[in-house]
């Protein structure tokens, strides 16, 4: 594989970091919207759910629950792709920004109260996410046989 010049390699890494941040935002949005739709549907579902699978299946007939489940399946798949790009210890704290989004969505759509303590919590999550986001997204570059065998280029190798 031809080696990249220093500015080209830096530009490549920056592009990859930007791509990861954009996907993290998409993953967070899918999770927040999925949870909001699911919560809305479950709040209008009168039957209690427990260990039996039947009430869960009945709950899926509610359109909001169904939409929530579809969004959460998309969240799961995009998050899997994100985990193929970045460390677990990078993805997990960064995607917790969804808690902030959930508070905002709860206030806007469910008219919930946001106390002073909650705003402090929001600030801490923002600071923590920013701190984690400023670290290298992939520190463990060891790959299994498949990626290496297929001869795919590795953006981290530059």
């Amino acid at each position, binding site marked *: 594989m031809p080696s990249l010049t220093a500015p080209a390699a830096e530009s490549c890494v920056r592009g990859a970091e930007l791509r990861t941040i954009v996907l993290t935002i998409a993953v967070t949005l899918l999770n927040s919207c999925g949870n909001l739709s699911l919560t809305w549907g479950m709040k209008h579902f009168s039957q209690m759910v427990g260990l039996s699978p039947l009430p869960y299946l009945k709950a899926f007939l509610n359109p909001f629950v169904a939409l929530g489940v579809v969004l959460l399946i998309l969240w799961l798949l995009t998050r899997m792709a994100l985990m193929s790009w970045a460390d677990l210890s990078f993805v997990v704290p960064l995607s*917790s920004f969804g808690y902030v989004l959930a508070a905002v969505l709860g206030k806007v759509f469910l008219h919930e109260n946001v106390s002073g303590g909650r705003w402090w919590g929001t600030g801490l*999550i923002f600071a923590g996410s920013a701190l984690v986001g400023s670290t*290298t997204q992939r520190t463990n570059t060891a790959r299994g046989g498949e990626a290496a065998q297929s001869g795919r280029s590795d*953006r981290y190798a530059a």
Partner: protein
Amino acid sequence: MKWILLTIIVFSTVLGDLLQSYEMKRSGEQSVNVQGLAKLLRMIGSRKYLFLGIVCMAISFFAFMALVQTEPLSFAVPASAATFVLETLLAKFVLNERVGFRRGAGALLVLGGVVLLAH
């Protein structure tokens, strides 16, 4: 019952994320277009650790649904946020990720924020 459900949530989330991360790192970078998502869906059926990871996530999801029906979110959310610290530690020791000061401090700040947010 709530402590049993909480234990199930924490352990199944941590195990599910570790298995997914391990398997996704092995698979190389995946795209997020329609074909890429379809490929990821097929991968769940063909890779045993990934399948097990998804089963763990499903267990965590149903346990969380059951927990929030009987307990307030102000208990369920901060309690289940314990996964952040546990996952960061296990990512370092099991997945050999480099967790430096900034990443560790960031995870702790997020944990503190989630606890405050839920009150």
